[in-house]
């Protein structure tokens, strides 16, 4: 009873697939968004008093409208910023004018001295975005290098090579990325 259904010719399948392929090739954008991730502080509470932070614990960076740097009150160079920040956070010789440390018990690391240092970054309205990102990049690099050093010392590999979440968390706790962006003032437009 059943009539034989003629076989469908599959020869043009490749053509159809090609057509679709070319459509997707043309519409595809392959760029993966990359960037520097930061967390903004919550808006200041007008009633709350500004936190009392000792001067030795603050590392101030000012970028003026000519893209010049003022680091801790002295003119500075971008190329030296990274090592200065690292030295500030590490305070290897426990100097009096560099930040305090507090000993903390951290899982997987044991007793670690955590720096209380804070980087304060301030810019003018006329600062170029390019310079701002350069400074942010140097700060990110400094903290990444510090994390790498600690991870190498404790786990024998770089921070980004760590696979266990607990280890990453422990390192993050031992070296908190303390970058504070000062409340903007409308100067230098």
């Amino acid at each position, binding site marked *: 009873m059943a009539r034989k259904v003629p076989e469908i010719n*599959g020869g043009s*399948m*490749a053509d159809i*697939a*090609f057509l*679709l*392929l070319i459509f*997707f*090739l043309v*519409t*595809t*954008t*392959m760029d*993966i*968004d*990359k*960037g*520097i*991730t*930061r*967390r*903004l*502080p*919550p*808006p200041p509470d007008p009633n709350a008093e500004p936190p009392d932070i000792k001067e030795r614990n603050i590392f101030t960076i000012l970028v003026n409208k000519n893209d010049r740097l003022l680091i801790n009150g002295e003119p500075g*160079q*971008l*190329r030296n910023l990274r090592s200065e920040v690292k030295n500030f956070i590490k305070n290897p010789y426990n100097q009096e004018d560099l930040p305090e440390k507090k000993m903390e018990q951290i899982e997987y690391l044991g007793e670690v001295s955590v720096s209380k240092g804070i980087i304060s970054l301030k*810019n*003018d*309205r*006329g*600062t*170029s*975005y*390019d310079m*701002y*990102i*350069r400074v*942010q*990049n140097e700060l*990110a*690099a400094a903290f*990444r290098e510090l994390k790498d050093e600690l991870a190498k010392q404790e786990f024998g590999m770089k921070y980004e090579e760590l696979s266990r979440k607990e280890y990453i968390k422990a390192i993050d706790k031992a070296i908190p990325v303390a970058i504070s*962006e000062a409340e*903007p003032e*409308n100067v230098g*437009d």
Partner: protein
Amino acid sequence: MGKFRKNKEKGTPQVTTAALPDIIFMLLFFFMVSTVMRTETLLVKISAPGATEVQKLEKKSLVSYINIGPPKQENLGSKARIQLNDSFARVSDVREFILAEREKLDEADRQFMTTALKIDQDTKMGIVTDVKQELRQVGAFKINYNTRQVAEINYY
């Protein structure tokens, strides 16, 4: 000897093309999966600054974009403008934009919302600071400064 000659006369056998559709389909699926449809047209010129310490932006559905740069259309001047969705906007519009974007997400995902700032490198920080202040007010704390990845920064 005759045996060998016979073989040669046959010539090379035709290459079978039966697997061609499969190969093409494979490529097709690859591109279908990796495609991100372009949803907005940029009205501003953006050449992102270079940086070495970049992180990939994950979960694109949780990211909303704010573009800042000089307008592409030349008669609009060269001062940096903000683009939200498909139109120019003022700093005061950022709040509404973020609230609308947040509304689109699931309740559980809202805390992970990231705002990507795509900003031209020649922009002055004034407008960027204003936008950042707005973001702080509206509670969009997680931001990402969009940058190009470069191997090395040249200091000058």
